[in-house]
C-alpha cells in the first residue's frame, strides 16, 4: 500500500494542555490537563495510521489537533512539509479542502434541519466549487459512492439509520476530495453488523481514492484490519508505534502486550485455555499523571528508574518504536 515513503503529515512535539479553573473558597486554582503531551509521529502518503488507546488518552484530541480544530499549546503540525499551526482562519479554511474528518456519533454530526443533500452540497458551496447543477450531480454521485441512493439527498437525517448516517458523514468528508482523512472512532457507535460494512466501505474508498488516513479507535480488532501502522497511546503519549503485523506478533511495550492479551480469541476452546494476566487498575488522571513513565503505576515490570526518567520513543529497528526503559 505504501508507494514511496513520502510523509504527508507530521506531528512534531505536539502538546495540548487544557486549563481547568477550580473555585475553592475565594481563590481560583488552575489545574492543567495534559491531554496530549509531546507527540512525534508522521503519516506517510496513502497510508493508514491506526491510533489506539483507552478512552481519555488523547486520541481524539490528536485528531482534532492535526485538523486544526484545536489550537496546540506547543509543537508543530507539518502538512506536506509546511507548518500549518497558527495560521489565520481563512488559511485554515482553505486547508480544509485537503483534510477532512469523519465523526464518531453519526446522530449528532448531521444538522437535523438540513436535507442531507444540502449538508453535503454546502461543503462544495463553501469553496464556490462548480455550478448548482454540477454540485447536485456530484452530491448524487457521492451518495452512490458510499452505497446510498442519489434520491436520498432530499431526505432529512432522522429518516436514516445510524449506518446510513455514517455513510452520509463519509460522503460529506469525501466531497472535497481531500488528501487526508481523520476517522474519529467512525464505527464505535454502530451495531457490530453495520461496523463491518462501514469499515469495508472506508477501506475500499481509501484504496480507490488514494487517501491518507488517521484511524482513531479503541477497538484493537478493528485497527488491525484497517491500518498499515499502529500507534498505541497512553495518557497523552505514544508508547509504541509499529507496522500492524509486527505490533500484533511482537508487541514490545508492556501496555501493548496487555492490550493485545485482552482481546478475546474467536475460538472458544483456545480462549478458555488461555491464561491471561489482565491490566489492573484505572488510568491515572491526566490532571496529575505519574512521574517518569506514565504507565509505571500499572506495569508489572516497573523499577525505580521508571519513576525517575520518562522513556522516550526510540526506534528499536524495523520501523518499530517503543517508549520503555527495558526494550
Amino acid at each position: 500500500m505504501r508507494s514511496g515513503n513520502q510523509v504527508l503529515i507530521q506531528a512534531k512535539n505536539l502538546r495540548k494542555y487544557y486549563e481547568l479553573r477550580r473555585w475553592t473558597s475565594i481563590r481560583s486554582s488552575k489545574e492543567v490537563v495534559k491531554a496530549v503531551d509531546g507527540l512525534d509521529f508522521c503519516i506517510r502518503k496513502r497510508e493508514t495510521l491506526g491510533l489506539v488507546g483507552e478512552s481519555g488518552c488523547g486520541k481524539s484530541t490528536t485528531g482534532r489537533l492535526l485538523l486544526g480544530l484545536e489550537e496546540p499549546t506547543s509543537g508543530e503540525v507539518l502538512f506536506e512539509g509546511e507548518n500549518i499551526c497558527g495560521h489565520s482562519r481563512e488559511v485554515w479554511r482553505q486547508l480544509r479542502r485537503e483534510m477532512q474528518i469523519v465523526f464518531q456519533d453519526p446522530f449528532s454530526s448531521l444538522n437535523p434541519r438540513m436535507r442531507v443533500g444540502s449538508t453535503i452540497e454546502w461543503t462544495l458551496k463553501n469553496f464556490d466549487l462548480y455550478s448548482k447543477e454540477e454540485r447536485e450531480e456530484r452530491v448524487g454521485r457521492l451518495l452512490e459512492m458510499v452505497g446510498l441512493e442519489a434520491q436520498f439527498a432530499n431526505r432529512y437525517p432522522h429518516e436514516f439509520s445510524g449506518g446510513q448516517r455514517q455513510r452520509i458523514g463519509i460522503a460529506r468528508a469525501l466531497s472535497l476530495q481531500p488528501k487526508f482523512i481523520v476517522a474519529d472512532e467512525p464505527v464505535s457507535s454502530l451495531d457490530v453488523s453495520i461496523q463491518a460494512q462501514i469499515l469495508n466501505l472506508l477501506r475500499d474508498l481509501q484504496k480507490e481514492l488514494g487517501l491518507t488516513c488517521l484511524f482513531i479507535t479503541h477497538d484493537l480488532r478493528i485497527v488491525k484490519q484497517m491500518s498499515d501502522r499502529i500507534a498505541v497511546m497512553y495518557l497523552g503519549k505514544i508508547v509504541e508505534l509499529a507496522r500492524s503485523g509486527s505490533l500484533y506478533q511482537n508487541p514490545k511495550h508492556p501496555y501493548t502486550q496487555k492490550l493485545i492479551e485482552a482481546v478475546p480469541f474467536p475460538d472458544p476452546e483456545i480462549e478458555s485455555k488461555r491464561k491471561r494476566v489482565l491490566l489492573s487498575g484505572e488510568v491515572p488522571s491526566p490532571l496529575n499523571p505519574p512521574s517518569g513513565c506514565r504507565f509505571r503505576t500499572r506495569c508489572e515490570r516497573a523499577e525505580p528508574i521508571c519513576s525517575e526518567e520518562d522513556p522516550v520513543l526510540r526506534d528499536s529497528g524495523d520501523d518499530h518504536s517503543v517508549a520503555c526503559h527495558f526494550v
Partner: protein
Amino acid sequence: MQEFDSNLRKRGMMLTSGRAYGFLKEFLSNPLVAMAFIVIVLFVVMSAAPQLFTPHDPYKMEPVERLNPPGLRNLLGTDEMGRDLYTRIVYGARLTISFSVGVILIALTIGILIGGISGYCGKFIDSVIMRSTDLFLAFPMFVLAMAIVSALGRSLVNAMFALSLVWWAQYARLMRGQVLVAKQELYVHAARATGTKSHVILFRHILPNCFAPLLVKATLDISMAILLLSALSFIGLGAEPPIPEWGAIITTGRRYLIGYWWYPTFPGLAIFLVSMAFNIMGDTLGDLLDPRRIR
C-alpha cells in the same frame, strides 16, 4: 420519475409544495387543537373586519337602551351608556389581540437579538448581558410594567412597550441557552471542519436549531400578554375608558356585576377564550416543531 417509489414521492411532495398543508392537517387532527384554531381564526378575522360581524357602532351611546340584558336586539346586552356589548367586544378584539401579539413580538425580537449575541460571543459580553437580564428577571414583572407605564403616561401603546420591556429578558435567557447548546453540537463542528464560513454557520446551523422553544414560549405567552394587558387596563394604566379594550370594559363593568352580570362576564369570557386558545396552540406547536416530525 418512474424510479421514485410512491412513498418517496409522497414524502417529497409533503416536503416541498404540500408541506404547509400536511402540517396543518396534522395540527387539526386533535379536536381540542382544532377548536382553539377556529377560535383564533375567528377572532383574527373579527379584528381584521369587525364591521362584518355587527351592525352597531361601538362608541354610539343610546341612554334609553342602557343596561339591557342579553336579547335579540343586543346579543350580549348593553352597558351603562347603552352601547352594544357584543359590538364592543368585537371591536376590542383588534386592540387586545394586536397589542398583546405586539408585546410578544417586540419582546421576542429584542430577546433573540440580545440572547443570540450573548450566547454566540460568550465570555465578557455574555456576562454583562446576562447580569442585566438578571436585573430584569429579579423584579416582579407586573410591578415593573406598572411603574414604566405610569412614568410614560397612560395609554395602550405605552402599556405595550412597558410589557415588552419587562418581557424580553425571558426570551434572551432562553435564546442564549439554545445558542450555547447548538454551538456545541457536533454538526456545528462538522460544518467548521468542512470550511464553512462563520456567518453561514450562525445562520444555517445554529439559529435554525434555536427557534422552536422560543416560538412555543411566544405562543404560550400571548395568552399571558392578553391577561396582563387587560390587567393593566383594568387598574387604569392601559386603554382609556371609551376605548373598547376588553380589560377596560371589565374595569367599568365590575361595578355593575351585581344585577347586570352580563356586563363584565362577556368580555371576561372573551379573554378566557382567546388566551386558552393561544395556550393550546403553544402546547401543540411544541410537538410539531420537533424536526423529527417533518415527514
